[in-house]
């Protein structure tokens, strides 16, 4: 009973001391840590085949999230990725045109691919990213939920879009990898007629 009512301050002080020392100490990896890290890295390196894939054999893409799906765009059409800070809405544009942004003095229009693909939309999140795409005569940004990063996809691994991908998505899909990564046809999107806005207000 005594032990239950009396607080073991000794133990508490000891534990606090341990925490203090742990916080105060700089992180110096022990031999064990070092070995672990090196082993992990070796495994990663071992997994990649030793052969350097050529540009012809692989396709450089940028992965990104859109709703629940993972999509990819050819890196050749990507100029830059950009963390969306503010957007200026534009009047008299289709609903998928969210507005315009200013990236280092350049003005780009921003398209919401979810609207474009008729996917379920969410409110504009603060951490939304913009992928700025470009061809020779066209450049605009697309709004995505998150950017995963760039990767190389072997061309062989790309299969034609399955029949389950219908509608707008199917129309713009270039192919699907075995990891269910939908590679979008950037050229098609960029050259889509809908992108050319010619609206006459009040006309």
């Amino acid at each position, binding site marked *: 009973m005594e032990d239950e009512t009396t607080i073991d301050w000794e133990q508490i002080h000891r534990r606090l001391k341990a925490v203090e020392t742990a916080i105060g100490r700089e992180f110096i990896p022990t031999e064990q840590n070092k070995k672990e890290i090196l082993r992990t890295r070796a495994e990663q390196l071992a997994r990649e085949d030793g052969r*350097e894939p050529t540009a012809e054999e692989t396709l450089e893409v*940028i992965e990104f999230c859109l709703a629940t799906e993972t999509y990819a765009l050819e*890196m050749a059409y*990507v100029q*830059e*990725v950009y*963390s969306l800070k503010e957007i200026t809405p534009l009047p008299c544009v289709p609903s998928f045109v969210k507005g315009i942004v200013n990236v280092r003095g350049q003005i780009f229009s921003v398209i919401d691919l979810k609207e474009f693909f008729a996917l379920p939309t969410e409110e504009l999140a603060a951490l939304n990213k913009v992928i700025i795409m470009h061809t020779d005569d066209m450049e605009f940004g697309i709004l995505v939920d998150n*950017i995963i*990063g*760039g990767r190389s996809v072997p061309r062989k691994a790309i299969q034609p879009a399955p029949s389950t991908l219908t509608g707008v998505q199917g129309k713009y899909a270039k192919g699907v990898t075995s990891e269910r990564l939908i590679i979008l046809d950037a050229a098609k999107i960029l050259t889509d007629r809908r992108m050319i806005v010619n609206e006459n207000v009040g006309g």
Partner: protein
Amino acid sequence: MALINIFSYLQMTKMGNEIATLEEQIALHQEIDGLISDPILQIERNRQSTILWTTILTIVGVVVGLIATVAITRHITHPLRAIVDIAKQVANGDLNVDIASTHRGDEVGMLENAFENLVIGLTEITMAANQISAGDLTIKVEPRSERDVLGHALTSMVTTLREQTQEMVDGVNILTASVGGIMAATSELTAGATQTAAAVSQTTTTVTQVRQTAQISSEKADMVSQSSRQTAEISQSGETATKDTIAKMQQINEQMKLVAESIVVFSEKSQTIGEIIATVNDLADQSNLLAVNASIEAALAGEQGKGFAVVAQEIRGLAEQSKQATTQVRTILRDIQEATRAAIITTEQGSKAVVSGLEQSANAGEAIRHLTESVTKGVQAATQIAASSREQLVGVDQMVKAMESIKLATAQNVDSSKQLESAAKNLEALGQKLKQLADRYQV
């Protein structure tokens, strides 16, 4: 008896007289003899001549004298001797004599008559005396003559006796009545004294019991006084303890406040950590984007950008790790926040408990203070009770002593009244005896 003696004496006197008369007669006789002798003497003087004559005459004289003597003896001496015998009887007090009267006209006859009268008188007087001695004072003694001294004396004696007896009877009656009154009063007195003694005895017993009760009361009062004094001390120490408790509780409350503030500060520090983590996360995001952009640039550079692309990939990996680390930190921060909230809630509860403890301690203190006041009053009352009990005990002791004295006096009273009663009884017995004596007399 005296009367009888007197009678005897009188009879003897009478007989004396008779004897004197006899002696006179004897002397006369002798004188006669002398007269006879005288010639003889003259013859003597002429002795020689007359001796013969004398002798003859003497012989004749003797013979004549003898014959005369025999005759006189026959005629006088015998009746006289009978009278002498009677006189002797009378002198002995025997009045039962038979005087055979010869009815002689001579002195003897007269003597006989006188004797008879004497005996009759004596007998009458004896009868009267007998009656008097039988208590009959109603008799009348007729004096035989004017000069009957004895009769007069007897008459006056009877009269005097009658008067005195009457007075005595009256006195005895009064005495008897008085003794009855005294007896009744004495009986009442004795009964009263006995009742008083019983009552006093009961009262004494009661007073003794009261004394015992008073003793017990006094002891109890002392005990109560002592125990209430102890209670007062205990309640005072209780009051002090409660005050200490309140002070400690207030200290605990202050410390709880400090603990709560420390926890809040700690929580705010956690918030700062969160902010820093957010910054780190942002940095990681930007690093990621930068890595992507770098890889884009590397892709644009073609073959020359290959190495750069690897670097960019590595940077991207680091950014990802940073992001994961920030997520972990955020989770930990959330845990810390929850623990902090729990700590705050616990501290709040503790503080509330301390506050209610304070209130209760204050209430307890107040209660104990009231208790102390009551106990103090109780102590005063108990002390007073003890003092008065002691006084009461002293008073009862005095009462016990007084009751003992009263008891003693009452016992003496009872004894005295009993003695008085027995004396009265003796007196009554005496009165009864006197009355019986007096009743024997017919007045």
